[in-house]
């Protein structure tokens, strides 16, 4: 197969910025609206973690599939998941991407290859590997991206599924967004102090990369290398990206007052806001000007408003829906 690398052109940068902005603005709207008590489900926001999926998605095609976790909003939107169906899902409406059955933690948009996110930590890891197995057996193009957190690394099912992906040389890319916390628990009580996750993954047999997920060009490079590695059929790969969740684990608020995370740590990561940095870079280098930026934002804003309006007006699922869904 040919070298499939996409260069990080200005155009790609703008598209990455747009994706990040979309995620940020959608998430902020959710946070804002959450208090109205119409989105009645546990909701894990991606604010602060927009960069990795926005960058990686710029390298994916419609042949590529994604599975994700409880914190799936960014992954869903970056892969091109339908916004109206997403917001409707948070509202539990029939027009939701999961027909209202799943809520924030169970998203799907098969049309764009977003094959499902679920709420059991580690639960979709083997699902993603199975999708890749099917690609191999059916000789279909594309790879499967499995998004996980640093917590999911601790589940035995990660180890089992990763091992099999190596044994069968499957087209699968594990992307670990290491935000250093599992709920409120820091890595200290969960993993050995000086052990690097990407090294662990490498020792299982995955070709591995590690980087600062907020560093756009470096992350783009890593992702591009990893995607190419897989597309050349060189085996499954693993990327660990450092990143940071700005708000509470679950819910719309900040929880810095709880002090489970050092204030300097929070400040450090906020200073590396990938959206601010890339915006500045693109403005400074005059790739875009303020009016372009405003147009992007205004369009997103409009879409978000429409999505919420539609979601609120949409009907709930019919009362016989759950029964009908249980068996095919």
């Amino acid at each position: 197969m040919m070298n499939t690398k996409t260069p990080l052109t200005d155009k790609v940068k703008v598209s990455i910025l747009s994706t990040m902005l979309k995620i940020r603005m959608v998430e902020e709207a959710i946070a804002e609206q959450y208090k109205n008590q119409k989105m009645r489900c546990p909701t894990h926001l991606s604010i602060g973690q927009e960069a990795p999926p926005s960058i990686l998605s710029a390298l994916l095609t419609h042949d590529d599939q994604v599975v994700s976790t409880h914190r799936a909003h960014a992954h869903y939107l970056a892969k091109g998941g339908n916004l109206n169906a997403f917001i409707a899902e948070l509202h539990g409406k029939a027009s939701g991407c999961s027909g209202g059955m799943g809520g924030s933690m169970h998203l799907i948009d098969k049309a764009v290859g977003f094959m499902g996110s679920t709420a059991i930590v580690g639960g979709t890891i083997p699902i993603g590997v199975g999708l890749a197995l099917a690609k191999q057996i059916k000789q279909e193009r594309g790879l499967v991206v499995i998004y996980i957190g640093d917590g999911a690394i601790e589940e035995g099912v990660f180890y089992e599924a990763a091992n099999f992906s190596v044994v069968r040389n499957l087209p699968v890319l594990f992307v670990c967004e290491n935000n250093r916390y599992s709920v409120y628990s820091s890595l200290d009580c969960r993993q050995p102090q000086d052990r690097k996750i990407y090294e662990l993954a490498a020792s299982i047999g995955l070709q591995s990369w590690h980087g600062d997920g907020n560093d756009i060009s470096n992350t783009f490079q890593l992702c591009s290398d990893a995607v190419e590695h897989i597309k050349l059929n060189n085996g499954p790969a693993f990327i660990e990206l450092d990143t940071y969740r700005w708000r509470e684990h679950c819910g719309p608020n900040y929880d810095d007052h709880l002090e489970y995370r050092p204030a300097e740590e929070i400040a450090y990561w906020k200073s590396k806001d990938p959206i601010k940095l890339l915006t500045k870079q693109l403005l400074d280098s005059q790739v875009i000007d303020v009016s372009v930026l405003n147009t992007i934002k205004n369009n997103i804003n409009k879409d978000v408003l429409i999505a919420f309006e539609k979601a609120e007006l949409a009907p709930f699922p019919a009362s016989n829906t759950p029964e009908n869904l249980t068996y095919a």
Partner: protein
Amino acid sequence: MLKETHQISFAEAINETTEQLMSYDESIICYGLGVNDPGRIFNTTKNLVETFGDQRVFDMPTAENGMLGIGIGAAIAGLKPIIIFQRVDFFLLAMDQLVNNAAKWRFMFGGQSNVPITIRLIIGRGWGQGPTHSQSLQAWFAHIPGLKVVMPSTTEELKQLLTASVLDPNPVIILEHRWLYQQKGNVPIQIDNRWLLSEQSNISTGDELTVVSSSYLTTEAKIALKFLQEHHGISIEHITLSVLAPLNTSRIIESVEKTGRLLLLESAHETCSISSSISHQVVASSFDKLKLAPVVMAKPDWPEPTTYSGTKYYYISAYDIAQKICEMLAITLDIEALQKQGHHDVPGDWFTGPF
């Protein structure tokens, strides 16, 4: 002996009981995801690490099967671990260690090692908990010989049940309903190490029908039964089933022999449920005393949908219970006052999400 009591919530009672137990018996350890975090498992593990140190009270990796097995090993070595899982659903990862090791260890080694662990599982409900945060798998556990299964219904009974569970030499699973945590009750101030796992207790006595409930359904049943008693003079015997395994139905049978009618409130799906088993046992022992077949009210046969509309008729309410009782007694009563006001998907107005 009269016990001094005080008014505290269910969550506070768990916390207080655990603290007293850990002071009383230094072989008790306590761990689980979030045990020492700011949430402290809905405050049920507050102050523990401060009092007993992080050798005895600790957080853990997200690795349910391994961590349960480690608790079993520690128990075999003479510790008494309390292991906490924030949802029953997460505990599905640990079934191998639970069944193949915890339940059988004593048996398969000829009685030479006991496994005195207590597994606290939290049952989620409502506010979009949905398909992966709301399962109630007591029937699974009760099906396995070697396990004890406890489902407290009230704050009053919690302290005795938790104490007896932790001090029991067998593996005990205690299923706590998230919606009970804020309920207040009169709780003995001190634990008593002689407390037993008392299998059932009567909430009320009556002649016309026997109602059996566990966990949060006891709350709904109490509302219904109080209403029927006060407004319509209907006398119903209400028994809470606190210990589901080993299952002892003698008190239920005794009651049914008096009332001739049995309504079983099931918080899980009906097929292969504990209620089906009770129904079978009661029929087997009291066939001739029954005025009609036992009735089971259970969750419908699908997972909890996340959507608000999907939980409206998913769970059994006080109204449903009263309606079913009228049906069983073949009477028509005005029970409209039992219709729940406000949102059906929260335990109380104070709850505004997200978890």
